[in-house]
């Protein structure tokens, strides 16, 4: 009963029940979390910038790495990532519309907009999985030198990139993939690449059309292509065949590039994934009428904040990973 409350009146600042920022406890805590999460992401992106400025002349060029679109062959730099960005912004819009419908207590509208948001998020996570798969699988293949630098190949006529399969010789060497089933002494061994170092080296030697492209970026913003003589000389430094990417080495260039790619887009992808899960929970709560009975849809607003934040982070990841 109201009359039992004797301490603390409306005018008393310390009496409780005050909302100096005009936001509820839950919403403020969501903002607390988002600000700290924003700082985490900023830390990652700043570290990326650090590594990139450190190797500013040899960093891989994103347009040449992310050129694939599902179901299409060819060179389409960035179109797919732009599509992913649009999907995420679009799902952000349906989320705001859900929040807006929530304010007006229109349950069916909230349900439909939440549903569309979840679909958008799922498409995005799927696209990211596909990006990762393409990135890990690689395309052209490369050689690694003693110093850990990556040598790629281009055609002397057209200047297009050459894949190892385009020129590598097939030598009849004894190449056996060391697998666990082959012996009890097995501990671990590197998986064999599709071509051995010898086969690639012989292929370059017998094919005058093949030139090496180093990591170094020239004044025009392109990677430096060596002459035929330089190519043959540089070939002696090669120690490994690299195909695709993992956390140790990648065919695109600087090792840190793949590490940051996995780490930052992975961390973001994990956020999107958990966002989809949380959206699902709220979605079912809306269907069950939990918020209808509660009289307000503030929970939808709170997960909405999280969802927009994920979109906001992606805008920055998109710029710093794919554009700049």
């Amino acid at each position: 009963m109201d009359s039992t409350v004797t301490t603390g009146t409306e005018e008393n600042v310390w009496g409780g029940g005050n909302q100096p920022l005009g936001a509820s406890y839950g919403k403020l805590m969501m903002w607390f979390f988002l600000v700290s999460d924003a700082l985490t992401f900023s830390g990652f992106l700043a570290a990326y910038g650090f590594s990139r400025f450190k190797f500013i002349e040899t960093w891989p060029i994103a347009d040449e790495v992310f050129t694939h679109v599902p179901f299409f062959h060819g060179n389409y730099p960035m179109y797919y990532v732009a599509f992913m960005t649009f999907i995420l912004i679009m799902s952000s819009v349906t989320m705001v519309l859900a929040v807006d419908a929530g304010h007006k207590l229109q349950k069916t509208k909230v349900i439909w907009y939440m549903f569309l948001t979840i679909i958008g998020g799922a498409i995005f996570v799927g696209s990211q999985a596909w990006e990762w798969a393409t990135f890990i699988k690689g395309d052209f293949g490369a050689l690694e030198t003693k110093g850990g630098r990556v040598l790629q190949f281009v055609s002397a006529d057209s200047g297009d990139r050459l894949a190892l399969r385009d020129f590598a010789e097939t030598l009849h060497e004894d190449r056996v993939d060391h697998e666990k089933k082959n012996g009890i002494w097995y501990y671990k061994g590197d998986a064999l690449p599709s071509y051995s170092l010898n086969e690639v080296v012989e292929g370059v030697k017998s094919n005058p059309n093949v030139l090496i492209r180093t990591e170094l970026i020239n004044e025009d913003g392109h990677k430096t292509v060596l002459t035929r003589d330089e190519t043959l000389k540089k070939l002696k430094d090669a120690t490994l065949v690299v195909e695709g990417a993992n956390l140790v080495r990648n065919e695109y260039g600087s090792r840190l590039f793949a590490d940051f790619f996995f780490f930052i887009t992975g961390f973001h992808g994990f956020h999107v994934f958990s966002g989809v899960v949380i959206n699902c929970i709220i979605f079912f709560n809306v269907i069950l009428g939990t918020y209808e009975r509660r009289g307000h849809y503030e929970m939808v607003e709170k997960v909405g904040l999280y969802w927009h934040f994920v979109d906001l982070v992606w805008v920055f990841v998109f710029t710093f990973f794919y554009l700049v």
Partner: protein
Amino acid sequence: MAHEHKLEIFRGLLKFKSNTQKIWGVLTFLTLVTIVEVGLGIAKPESLTHSYFLGMKVLNWIFIILTLVKAYYIAWDFMHLRDEKSSLRRAIVWTPIFLVAYLIFILLFEADYIYHVYTDGFVKWNF
């Protein structure tokens, strides 16, 4: 909860009739900005990639500024910071901006220093 919405964007240049309309308006704007970004990224005009400002390509400055513009509209209209009290807005926005600006400043300066050590020093790493 802030129930009344401020329906103006671009400092009152554009005024919408309802919140829903404003959302679609902001979406259109964000899409346009993204299209411009991707267009520039694919075209890479010579005039922008060969001119520098503060040691960075003008094109990259354009990307970063457009990103901040997008971030502003996502935070202000989608996360409805526009409708919140200014004290809450400032606490949320300025805290990370100060910290991140400082972090970027020290890290990039340090990285540039290391770059010079690598290029001018006597350690061979590119072999």
